[in-house]
């Protein structure tokens, strides 16, 4: 059987919006309890919750309820949310990889279309590209390069492993088949870029 004082202190600590020390609790109880007596009861409450899904902990003399650290994974559930990289982002990534370090303006010059900020953000979020200082030209634009994570993800030992232009041609990746279609797709990506930003 839990006595009324213990119930009252437990409820107080539970409902309080900040950790309470023994003196504050004694003050709220409004009678002649000493902080020492309150502290003894608080320890009893803490012991009662030992090994349960709730714990009463002391931080700098102040007490508060929390969930045990070993159960934190239940409170924060992480879920994978895989997404296909957009064509625009793949192009930007390829340009950074082949031409690094490059500024955004240079990427745009190579792609022949505007690149939204969102596209670069996506690649930085994926940790495939990272800023690599500034180009010492007027405006001092940020320049980007690929990361180790990039090499790892694409199974490359180093940037030198990227196939050259001739290799790409030999692999048929530069064939002008359905060029119009590809251009049309490029325009679609532009629309997507606009949405991303």
């Amino acid at each position, binding site marked *: 059987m839990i006595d009324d004082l213990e119930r009252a202190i437990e409820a107080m600590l*539970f409902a309080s919006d900040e950790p309470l020390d023994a003196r504050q609790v004694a003050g709220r109880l409004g009678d002649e309890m000493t902080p020492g007596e309150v502290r003894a009861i608080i320890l009893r409450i803490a012991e009662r919750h030992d090994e349960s899904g709730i714990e009463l902990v002391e931080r700098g003399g102040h007490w508060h309820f929390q969930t045990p650290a070993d159960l934190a994974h239940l*409170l924060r*559930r992480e*879920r994978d*949310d895989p997404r296909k990289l957009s064509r625009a982002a*793949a192009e930007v990534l390829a340009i950074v990889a082949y031409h690094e370090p490059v500024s955004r303006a240079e990427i745009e010059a190579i792609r022949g279309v505007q690149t939204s900020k969102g596209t670069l953000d996506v690649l930085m979020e*994926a940790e495939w590209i990272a800023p690599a200082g500034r180009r010492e030209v007027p405006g001092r634009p940020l320049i980007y390069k690929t990361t180790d994570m990039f090499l790892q993800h*694409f199974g490359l030992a180093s940037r030198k492993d990227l196939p050259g232009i001739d290799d790409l041609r030999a692999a048929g990746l*530069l064939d002008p088949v359905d060029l119009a279609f590809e251009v049309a797709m490029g325009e679609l990506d532009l629309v997507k870029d606009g949405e991303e930003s």
Partner: protein
Amino acid sequence: MQELQLDFEIAPAAAEREDALQLSLDSWEGPLDLLLTLARSQKVDLRQISILALVEQYLAYIDEMRAKLEVAADYLVMAAWLAYLKSALLLPKDPAEDPSPDELALRLQLRLQRLAAMREAAARMLARDRIGRDVFLRAKPEGLRDVKLRRWDASLYDLLAAYGQVKLRTEPVVHMVSRRPVITLDAALQHLERLIGIKLDWAELSDFLPVDYKGPLRRSAIASSFVAALELARQGRVDLKQEAAFEPLYLKAAGA
């Protein structure tokens, strides 16, 4: 049913029921509310109240009010109706009258009972242990979170293909139309002219096509042979016949 005083949280206008008669009409939530309060002053169960006495109380109250201030229309409408009810209740019963005054009085009583029931229910509900007043929650719970870890998918092929496209897009464009498998009209004409002399009787157009034409080539051959057949017919060199639309087309050498 147990009478409960209204919860103190209910708007102050309603709080002082006993003194209500001294208050302005703003205190009432409409005529039915006023009637209910007056009925309560009879200190009997609503099922036993005297409707006649209630009507008189209401009319007297409204009269008093009208002397002092403008009374809202719905209170006056109720007053007029109650005045009618009162006279009907007092007059000798007319069996032909429908609905009878007793029925009207019963309906009024039923309405008052229902409103009273809900008024008490509201008071009892508000008197329950309410969160933030009687019971308290944790002030700052950790909260449960669903965190989406976004993972971007792309293969090396995607990357290289994308680069190929960039290169292509920026290279000078040369348009080339690739050859597609077709049978030209000239070829079909020659073929048909040659065969028309061999077949003597009516034969289907498709019988004139080489058997090794398959797929798109065969479709092309049908189309060009059809046009060729029309051309030969125009020149008077073949006869054509067809039973109905979409039926097979037959041809034979003219005059054969």
